[in-house]
């Protein structure tokens, strides 16, 4: 009974709209999918999305892991207060993040102009921001805190004496990290990667504010199709289903990996 209000909200605002979108996608017997797949814009968008969905999480994971490792070694009080500041970007709207980046790294941005005396060309420098890789960099701003929040509990609970033990048993530092730390952190790292990849693949607010529709990624293509007059709603719905499937697939891959690691021992 206690779960009833939640279930009702889930039904009204998730299941029903999702059902409507899926139904819309198949209104003309699935022909909408044919139109989507035949469109070269879709394939360009899919490629851009995959590049973004791979680079933003990879960069965020690398930075987030280093931050979480450092935080895990700090006294609890200091860790808690630092975590507050690190989590702050999560509360900001994507639009604020985008405008912040434009003000800092745009063509007339503070950082861009500061680099001019060093021989940097503002157009080339700020052009980077408006590419999928630049977008990945901007996304990392709020993906890194997510990675930190996922990895931190694992690293706090990790007994660092294990590294010392491995070294005393004959392993070098890198080997000790690879044999002892990596297997224990890997399930959470993969889960973090997949989660932020799904967020990066599906996000559009920051991208729209930052690059308009200049960069080909699926969320922006979907936005264009819906906002166009005389929009082809079945093909927009089909595109939504593809995007949804992509995000679900990435999350499922993470879950599958984590559950397999649970049941698998370290090999000899």
């Amino acid at each position, binding site marked *: 009974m206690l779960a009833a209000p939640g279930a009702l909200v889930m039904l009204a605002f998730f299941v029903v709209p999702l059902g409507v979108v899926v139904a819309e996608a198949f209104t003309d017997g699935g022909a909408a999918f044919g139109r989507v797949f035949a469109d070269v814009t879709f394939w360009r968008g899919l490629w851009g999305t995959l590049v973004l969905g791979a680079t933003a999480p990879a960069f965020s994971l690398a930075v987030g892991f280093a931050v979480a490792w450092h935080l895990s070694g700090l006294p609890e009080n200091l860790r808690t207060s630092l975590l507050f500041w690190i989590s702050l970007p999560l509360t900001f709207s994507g639009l604020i993040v985008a405008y912040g980046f434009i003000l800092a790294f745009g063509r007339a941005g503070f950082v861009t102009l500061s680099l001019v005396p060093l021989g940097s060309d503002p157009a080339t420098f700020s052009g980077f921001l408006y590419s999928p890789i630049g977008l990945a960099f901007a996304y990392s701003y709020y993906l890194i805190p997510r990675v930190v929040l996922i990895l931190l509990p694992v690293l706090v609970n990790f007994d660092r004496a*294990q590294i010392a033990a491995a070294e*005393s*048993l004959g392993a070098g530092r890198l080997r000790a990290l690879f*044999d002892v730390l990596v297997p224990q952190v890997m399930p959470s790292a993969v889960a973090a990667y997949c989660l932020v990849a799904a967020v990066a693949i599906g996000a559009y607010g920051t991208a729209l504010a930052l690059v308009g529709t200049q960069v080909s990624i699926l969320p922006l293509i979907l936005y264009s199709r819906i906002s166009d007059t005389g929009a082809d709603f079945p093909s927009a719905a089909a595109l939504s289903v593809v995007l949804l499937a992509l995000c679900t697939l990435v999350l499922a891959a993470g879950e599958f990996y984590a559950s397999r690691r649970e049941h698998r021992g*370290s090999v000899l």
Partner: protein
Amino acid sequence: MSIRLSSVNFRYPSTEFGVFDVDLDIRDGELVAVIGASGSGKTTLLKLIAGFESPDSGRILLDDADVTDLPVRDRRLGVVFQAYALFPHMTAWQNVAYPLKIRKVAPEERYRRAMEALFRVGLKGFEERRPQTLSGGQQQRVALARALVFQPKALLLDEPLSALDASLRGEMRDEIRRLQREFNISTVHITHDQEEALSMADRVAVMERGRLVQVASPRELYDAPATRSVAGFVGEANLWDGTVTAADAVEVPFGVLHVRPGNHAAGQRVAVLVRPENIAVGRLDGGAAVFEGSLVRDRFLGAMRRYDLAVGDAVIRGQTGFRGAIDAVSIRPEHILLLPQ
């Protein structure tokens, strides 16, 4: 294999803590326990021997080979950590086989040797278990097997019994001693538990503020502590401030004690040590000093009884099997030890 520390100094940056002027020889096959209060430097000493820290000055030698600048991995020392530091993602036998895997021992051989090591520590049948499914005592046995399986030059134990409950601790003391003798391996055992040190070690080293204050056999350490602080740290003790009044007498706050003639000059201030079990109940003849007083504490512990007898403003702590009333105690000269103040 012997371990030698020669004039070893180490200070943690920006602190007063470290180890200072440490000279220690651990003979082949010997078990030396290092005891001391928290912050006395005993774990730092172990870290220096293991190679986790590098001394600011001094040398560390294993069988006369200088290993001071050798990294941890190349020292070939078996270390058992306080919380065991077992690898939770590996089974018991994989934990034990890990040092063999590092040394590229063939898979079949390392499995055989890991199983043999587990058998020797009494864990046959537990080889496929993960550490978190084992009891504290079993985890410690895995840690011991892992530290011994690769035939290390010496064994370093960092408070290995502190995480166990009291009932298991006694059993594991005997087990560690048995294995140490069986492998005939030089061992440094760090502990804050003086009873553990006295019951297990060939020799005990006492550390205080980063310095070794005495290295002696357990019996010598107990019977003839070098300083007042060692006397107070090792075992129960009556320690009174005293002044030597004659070659065979010392004045303490509650009277005069007869002592065996020694090298103390009249007027010299000393610490007077008498162990509680050497306080005799009643009034003895033959040179014993007798003190009358009233019991202020009386604790019955089954086989023995511990009591505090108030004599004037002072308290004499005694230990006896006697069950009757106590109103006087006697202290014989041979049970009194005079230590520097």
